[in-house]
């Protein structure tokens, strides 16, 4: 399809529990990006993939966050031992090619709202 599909839309976890978020990029797109929107309008880059390979993980809090993009499976972002501060909307985006070679930047999904209580 022509949309980036993120599941679930909402996720509630108790502090210390694991959270796993999924992202199906647009078919044929080889780049996948994860962003975290903590405050209402502040986006933070987490990690990017080129196909199944990590392209840039400089934004990932490595102690508790991990991500994968395996062939023929949705990409995933997993948070072990969630903390209250992990409450945010997590956006996934995909791009057909290196984003600056196209004219459309990249396409975002509608996000997963994670609430840690």
């Amino acid at each position, binding site marked *: 399809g022509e949309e980036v599909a993120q599941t679930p839309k909402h996720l509630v976890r108790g502090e210390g529990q694991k959270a796993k978020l999924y992202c199906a990029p647009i078919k044929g797109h080889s*780049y996948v990006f994860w962003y975290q929107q903590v405050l209402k309008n502040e986006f933070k*880059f987490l990690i990017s993939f080129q196909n199944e390979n990590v392209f840039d993980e400089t934004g990932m809090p490595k102690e508790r966050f991990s991500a994968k993009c395996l062939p023929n499976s949705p990409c995933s972002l997993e948070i072990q031992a969630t903390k209250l501060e992990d409450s945010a909307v997590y956006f996934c985006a995909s791009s057909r090619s290196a984003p600056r070679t196209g*004219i459309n930047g990249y396409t975002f999904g509608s996000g997963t709202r994670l609430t840690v209580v």
Partner: protein
Amino acid sequence: DQQVKQNSPSLSVQEGRISILNCDYTNSMFDYFLWYKKYPAEGPTFLISISSIKDKNEDGRFTVFLNKSAKHLSLHIVPSQPGDSAVYFCAAMTDDYKLSFGAGTTVTVRA
């Protein structure tokens, strides 16, 4: 540190008039700039982009202007329509493909 700044949190404009959104950046390595529009409970939607080798790009009602020496860009929407009411994000990219976003400007178009 915030490398992309949108200093106006909100903008109210009458339908049919021009909306001008401003954005400043500090990182001189940014060489590709984008504007996204976002409705509540949705992801950002790409509007328009500009490479640093240009100073203007136009697409229908949307025009982006880039002033590299001032590290400033602006988005003009004319004429503004009720459906343009949304949060607008300025974003910038270097050759690592990750976006640095501004804090957003909420635009309200009044009938």
